[in-house]
């Protein structure tokens, strides 16, 4: 208990300044080395991580949805906040239906966003459309907020001819040029240095925009993450490194993922400003993102953001998390304190929402999602010749040869292939 108290000890700005000098150490002269601007000391003293205070978690709403400090209330008008709430619900319902559809064998794979709706909608709301987003794979709410429709999501999940990605990738690997979001790719963390580079190029053209890069607590261990942050810091790239710390990377809890103080604490190591906040608090996410964005754009530098949240769902449809965590733990985050519940409480208190509206809205969304599902499920798959397109900008001779060979093969053996499900080959 004492350890817990020590770790959550509140910090004033002064103590958070945290000195590496013992209170009675004699400061010597400044150092001449190129590698540091510092002072000499006669004290042989290790910096013990356990003696450095952990970074506190910024929040606005308590778990009952009450604003703790009225000064922090973003004061959204009714329309604004109800819209955000609705997007949180839509994300959640789309997830439920698509997850179930995978269980029924109708799509091959799915990843849910349960528990992270506030992280996604709150941050998306604080960004401008011209801010380029580099996603990981658990940001469907950001896609929806910006205008990607559930139907477009489903075309991708089914790999239909209407998928913007032309059926090239497995489900949830959306490509969002329509919404200024880069393509989801499976290798973890690869998007992070790309975000730094994109931000570098972006600032030459438009210094009022930034890049936002989402990644999880697990991806943050990748070398790409380290490289990306170091480069963004040295090259002054206006990029928000937005870590969704949801406690798990598949079965690996954060206790096994890192020994330090999460991801926010790494910021100072790179010379990057950092903020940690309650990812389940829509207002905190919004405020933090808005402030981080302002910092990044005005000072043309990166920011490390750590949204503390919880992955309520399994990692994916290929995972059964009961194998490595307790049902009680999940239950807490799934029913006792959820981002959706908090906002519902807030709205209800304001008189802007009630059970009847909730029921009606949920039914309407369910209908919308199910109709979209049916449409996507009955859409043809792409023309198989698409396999050979857009590998290179122009198809090279050797691949054209293979395409011709494929066509020849299909002429004779086509009956053995699921061509009826596809658009015509031409």
């Amino acid at each position, binding site marked *: 208990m004492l350890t817990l108290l020590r770790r959550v000890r509140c910090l004033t700005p002064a103590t958070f300044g945290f000195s590496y000098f013992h209170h009675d150490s004699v400061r010597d002269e400044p150092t001449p080395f190129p590698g540091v601007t510092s002072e000499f000391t006669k004290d042989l003293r290790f910096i013990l991580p356990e003696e450095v205070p952990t970074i506190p978690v910024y929040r606005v709403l308590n778990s009952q949805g009450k604003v703790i400090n009225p000064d922090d209330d973003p004061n959204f008008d009714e329309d604004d906040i109800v819209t955000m709430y609705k997007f949180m619900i839509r994300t959640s319902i789309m997830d439920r239906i698509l997850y179930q559809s995978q269980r029924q064998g109708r799509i091959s794979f799915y990843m849910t966003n349960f528990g992270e709706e506030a992280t996604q909608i709150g941050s998306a709301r604080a960004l401008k459309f011209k801010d380029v987003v580099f996603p990981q794979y658990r940001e469907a709410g950001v896609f929806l907020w910006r205008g990607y429709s559930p139907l477009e999501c489903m075309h991708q999940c089914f790999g239909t001819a209407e998928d913007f990605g032309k059926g090239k990738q497995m489900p949830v690997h959306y490509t969002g040029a329509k919404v200024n979001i880069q393509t989801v790719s499976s*290798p973890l963390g690869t998007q992070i240095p790309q975000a730094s580079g994109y931000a570098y190029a972006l600032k030459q053209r438009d210094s009022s925009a930034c890049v936002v890069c989402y990644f999880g607590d697990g991806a943050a261990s990748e070398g790409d993450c380290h490289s*990306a942050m*170091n480069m963004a810091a040295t090259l002054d790239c206006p990029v928000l490194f937005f870590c969704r710390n949801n406690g798990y990377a598949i079965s690996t809890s954060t206790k096994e993922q890192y020994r330090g103080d999460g991801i926010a604490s790494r910021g100072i190591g790179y010379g990057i400003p950092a903020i940690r906040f309650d990812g389940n608090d829509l207002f905190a996410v919004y405020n933090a993102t808005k402030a981080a964005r302002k910092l990044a754009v005005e000072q043309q530098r990166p920011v490390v953001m750590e949204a503390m949240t919880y992955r309520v769902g399994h990692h994916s449809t290929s995972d059964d998390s009961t194998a490595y965590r307790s049902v009680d733990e999940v239950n807490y985050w799934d029913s006792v304190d959820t981002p959706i519940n908090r906002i519902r409480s807030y709205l209800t208190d304001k008189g802007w929402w009630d059970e009847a509206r909730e029921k009606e809205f949920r039914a309407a969304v369910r209908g919308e999602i199910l109709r979209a599902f049916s449409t996507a499920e009955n859409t043809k798959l792409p023309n198989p010749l698409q396999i050979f397109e857009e590998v290179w900008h122009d198809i090279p001779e050797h691949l054209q040869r293979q395409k011709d060979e494929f066509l020849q093969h299909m002429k004779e053996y086509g009956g053995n292939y699921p061509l009826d499900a596809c658009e015509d080959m031409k």
Partner: protein
Amino acid sequence: MSCGRLLKRALTSVKKDGIRTAAGFAYIPQTPNPALGETTKLNMFQSINSAMDIAMEKDSSAVLFGEDVAFGGVFRCSLGLQDKYGSARVFNTPLTEQGIIGFGIGVAAAGTTAIAEIQFADYIYPGFDQIVNEAAKYRYRSGNEYNCGGLTVRAPWGAVGHGALYHSQSPEAFFAHVPGIKVVVPRGPIQAKGLLLSCIRDQNPCIFFEPKILYRMAAEEVPVGDYTLPLSQAEVVRQGSDITMIGWGTVIHVLLEVATMAEEQLGVSCEVIDLQTIMPYDSATIEKSVQKTGKAMVVHEAPLTQGFGAEIAARIQESCFLHLEAPIQRVTGWDTPFAYIYEPFYLPDKWRCFEAVKKLRDFM
């Protein structure tokens, strides 16, 4: 002569003459296309510098970055460019190949021309994931919504006389296996400038390997203006009728010397083809030659097994089977790491190539 004395002689002559001799080669200057106009004598790092200078002058977005490029680069390829274009466009990065390439992909995805320098091809591997899983698939996986075609990765490549395990590698085979990128290797200053300009302007991510031994020793009259040489087009550097010799980079000069030896000593006429672009490669030129000669050899510094010679040999036998009069010869580095003191014995030198010519001549 004992092995020890042979080695000593080889090393002494290296020291004395300043070029690799016992296992070495002499650079054979190429002549520029007169249609390209005014020329000046440049070595290869200067011609590469010229290519980047022209690229950055004509394309005001283009940026050049990597380790130590600001002061001119460890091989002087970027000399003067930061002074000319400023530190926003020519800049050093921290020491991280995976970061450099990932960053470069991001720059290119934003529509800006990105020239990323990797200090030695031997160090490109931390960036292999970014190249294979990201750059090569950026366009394809997005249904052509996005691409990083504006990215060119440059790296010094190949044997240099004393480079050993980690300053001599030729990794083109790893990258040729990845659909979605282009891989190019020039044989000298004229080709380096023209091919690099093509890579920079090509709409696909390109990897440009620069034979480092040629940076200083290879000098010739190079057109001063803006010119490109086509990618995916092999060049018949020497016409011949009896044997087809295929190579790229430094080894072309070895092959040219062997072709002369073959003519003078064996009465055999060799056709030397510089592949230039490893992927996508010009197999039509190779096929046309082998259909004429019936005898082929592929030569590369990289180790034998799974080297790019294997792909060429497979393609030749597939397309020219009935024309072949001998098995296809591959003369390559041995299947070992590139060992330091043993370099004269490791490389596919003129004697091993000469032996291959004889094998081809004598087969049937």
